[in-house]
């Protein structure tokens, strides 16, 4: 049966590119008629500035376009297609009503430069969202300007840099990052002009406090931390860590990638963090969009507030204004006011959940993860024994001994209709699989996934080839990534 599938799939031809469907003279658009007198444009420009060859864009009809992109969508797996337990990415349900609200003309078709008096509704929403995020995280003030988590990290570090400089502290050149951290942490530190220094993880999967004491110095600008960390474990010694870093004059940066685990249970502001970024496209259901757009608001303590990017949204006598007069600000980090469209979705979500709902989100996300972890730990090696938060990491070490790598297991999961977990990350666990179920998945779905993983592990023992050669049911089989990198073809060229 499976073999037949493989044969029939192999017969599929190359799926056409939109350019290959193009035919001269066909069109998919209709522009308004020219109802003003025609003029000779070319008279205004020197010949060398007038384009001679039209760009090779496709010439296709509207239905052809609809069929093409519909077919492409069917070659893509989203949360709506099936379970998506991609660790550290919080692939939860993206509510439909959010999509409807953001498309209201009064949100969708508002220009960033129209008079503030004519955009009060949009500004009120932004202000209310900022206030909600301040309360959820225990921070003093938020900006919504950063476009994504990585931009938030960088902006936060720039504020920390400005803070130290304002104290005449110009020798703080290092940012400490755990070895389990997401790659954006050290990358953001570098872009902000810092040197990234690594702190080790101990045998319990937590930051090694002794190692932290060793690497902290008068050069320390900040410690960047995700809590719970990327292993899904809560940093129990957070109070001591904050004391160590603050004691040396450094600041604490909170990467909010894993906030989905602790809403209503703990707040980064109370843990001693000075700067926080959130990923509204994770915890607050802005869809991931196939890689973006996201939104990465940044919250700070009162002492850091004057460094926030400008403009800062303020409220006075029930009027909202953008304050540009911020002499200590790190400056503008993005044109206009952030990814408003994603912020509208996040706001709609927060208002749909309320305080109890948000706490229940974290409660259920954590229970779902612990349930999966305990059911899987007999079959797969579990590197850290304690309860996890919203995600956990297991290792495919045992299966690797049978010749089946974690990559193979991930590919085999595709045959069961699941998106695989995050694999080979964090870097400090061998053959890592990082699983984050989120709170929006039912127990039945979790059980199906667990059963699939266990049956794949059994296949590894009995007929490893079926795992090694997976996937068998997808529209394409494994890709030659070496070829792609060695002979890069990054655009279509007409033969």
């Amino acid at each position, binding site marked *: 049966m499976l073999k037949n599938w493989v044969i029939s799939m192999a017969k599929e031809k190359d799926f056409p590119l*939109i350019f290959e469907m193009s035919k001269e003279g066909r*069109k*998919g658009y209709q*522009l*308004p008629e020219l*109802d003003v007198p025609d*003029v000779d444009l070319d008279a205004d420009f020197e010949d*060398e*500035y007038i384009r001679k060859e039209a760009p090779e864009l496709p010439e296709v009809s509207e239905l052809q376009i*609809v069929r093409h992109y519909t*077919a492409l969508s069917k*070659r893509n*797996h989203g949360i*709506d297609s099936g379970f998506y337990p991609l660790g550290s990415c919080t692939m*939860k349900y993206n509510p439909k009503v959010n999509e409807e609200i953001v498309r209201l003309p*009064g*949100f969708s078709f*508002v*220009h960033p*430069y129209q008079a503030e008096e004519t955009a009060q*509704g*949009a500004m009120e929403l932004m202000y209310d969202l900022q206030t909600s995020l301040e309360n959820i995280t225990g921070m003093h003030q938020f900006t919504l300007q950063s*476009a994504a988590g*990585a931009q938030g990290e*960088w902006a936060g570090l720039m504020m920390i840099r400005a803070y130290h400089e304002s104290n005449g502290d110009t020798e703080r050149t290092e940012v400490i990052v755990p070895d389990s951290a997401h*790659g*954006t942490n*050290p*990358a953001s530190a*570098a*872009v902000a002009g810092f040197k990234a220094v690594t702190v080790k993880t101990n045998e319990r999967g937590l930051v090694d406090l002794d190692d932290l004491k060793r690497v902290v110095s008068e050069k320390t600008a900040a410690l960047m931390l995700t809590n719970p960390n990327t292993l899904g474990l*809560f940093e129990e010694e957070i*109070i001591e860590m904050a004391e160590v870093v603050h004691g040396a004059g450094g600041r604490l940066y909170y990467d909010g990638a894993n906030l989905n685990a602790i809403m209503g249970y703990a707040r980064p502001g*109370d843990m001693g963090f000075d700067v926080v970024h959130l990923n509204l496209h994770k915890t607050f259901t802005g*869809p*991931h*969009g*196939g*890689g*973006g*757009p996201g939104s990465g608001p940044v919250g700070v303590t009162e002492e850091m507030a004057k460094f926030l*990017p400008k403009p800062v949204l303020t409220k006075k006598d029930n009027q909202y204004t953008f304050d540009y007069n911020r002499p200590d600000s790190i*400056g*503008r980090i*993005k044109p*206009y006011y952030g990814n*408003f469209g994603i912020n509208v979705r996040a706001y709609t979500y927060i208002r749909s959940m*309320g*305080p109890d709902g948000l706490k229940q989100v974290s409660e259920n996300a954590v229970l779902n993860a*612990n*349930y999966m972890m305990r059911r899987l730990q007999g079959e797969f090696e579990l590197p850290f024994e304690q309860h996890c938060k919203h995600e956990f990491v297991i290792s495919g070490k045992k299966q690797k001994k049978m010749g089946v790598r974690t990559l193979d297991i991930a590919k085999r999961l595709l045959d069961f209709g699941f998106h695989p977990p995050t694999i080979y*990350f964090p870097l400090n666990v061998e053959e890592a699989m990082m699983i984050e179920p989120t*709170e*929006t998945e*039912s127990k039945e779905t979790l059980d199906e996934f667990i059963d699939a993983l266990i049956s794949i592990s059994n296949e590894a023992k009995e007929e490893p080839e079926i795992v090694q050669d997976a996937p068998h049911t997808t529209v394409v*089989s494994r890709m030659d*990534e070496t070829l792609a990198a060695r002979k*890069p073809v*990054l*655009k279509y060229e007409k033969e």
Partner: protein
Amino acid sequence: MQHRYIPMTETDKKEMLDTVGVTSTDELFADIPEKVRFRGELNVKPAKDEHELTKELTQLAAKNVNTKSHVSFLGAGVYDHYMPSVVDHMISRSEFYTAYTPYQPEISQGELQAIFEFQTMICELTGMDVANSSMYDGGTALAEAVNLSAGQTKRSKVLVSKAIHPESMDVIKTYTAGPNVEVVEIDVKDGLTDLDHLKAELDDNTASVVVQYPNFYGQMEPLKEVQELVGEQKKTMTIVSSNPLALGYLTPPGEFGVDIVVGDTQVFGIPAQFGGPHCGYFATNKKLMRKVPGRLVGQTVDDDGRRGFVLTLQAREQHIRRDKATSNICSNQALNALATSVFLSVIGKRGIQEMATKNMKKARYAKKALEDAGFEVLYSNRFFNEFVVKLDQDVNHVNNQLIDKGFIGGFDLGKVDESLKNHMLIAVTEIRTKEEIDQFVKELGDIHG
């Protein structure tokens, strides 16, 4: 209370707690030190049901003037263009919008191919060799280009035309603070970058020269002359920010031999959304392929020899290279890149030219109508779809009156340049009708008195 987004029942919960071996979920949070355990209730508004919330937010949205309620002549980087219905329909396919970054190519061919098509279209428009899968927006794309040039040339000074978008200038200043690059602003003369000033500042420590084409005032910068000037300094790069729609008419920057072209594709089917999300693009020559920030999709074959697409050259990126990455960018604007691809498929090879020229013709009609009504219009006739008009009073004051007449007026240039107080930047796109333009000119004339 059971929420519609949360499927766990009491029975599920009990069974799961049993499996975990605890009696309550509180035990799962016992690792949070009591000192930092939050025991209160989050101070956010109580939940509203779907109907009530939709009603409330619809009323909130209705407070905002928008381009459906008013006729807009406002641009300055964000424009009101033709929005083919298919664009939103296609990006509303939830297999696209609820997917993550396409790290598993076997089940992400749809997204990967769409990005590959996007990269191709951007190369076609700009005349460049390589385009990435998108950046946050035109402003940050430009700032990333500036930092790339400093890293690549190992030089620490950049010359940036004051005729670029003022917010892009601000973003460049913030982005260059990290790597400590000096930004020298090049003056504007008659609405164009002052080439004499540029020449005077250009030296062997100049990493790059940055211009916008067409520039913030709508004027076409003489790219050929800029490129000739820059060419005198070996290694110095030319970075151009371009409204990609204008490239339906203007010679693409790539043909002049520039190094990097960036911009924003908001003009291609993406709503204004109070300033975001829009969609930055980033295109370079072949030499810089391995320095490009962000994700790139490449063509390859699968085990059975079929064509397919993967994320490639990832050794540039943060998740592999960490602090040595070419940028820290991770999330980008993939869904809006998809919108761009759909739009460019709609408009096609002929349509892009037709759309560009209709913008220019309607803008020229508006310019003439204003001149006929006695207004002074600044600068040369080498403009795209925006031009500067001198008023006899405060632009903000004029715009407030225009709102009451059903119009969103142009951009107040006095906000960014004291010498252009009482000057309005007016954008006229292909969807403005003669009637709307005539009425707008009449209202402006009446206010002008």
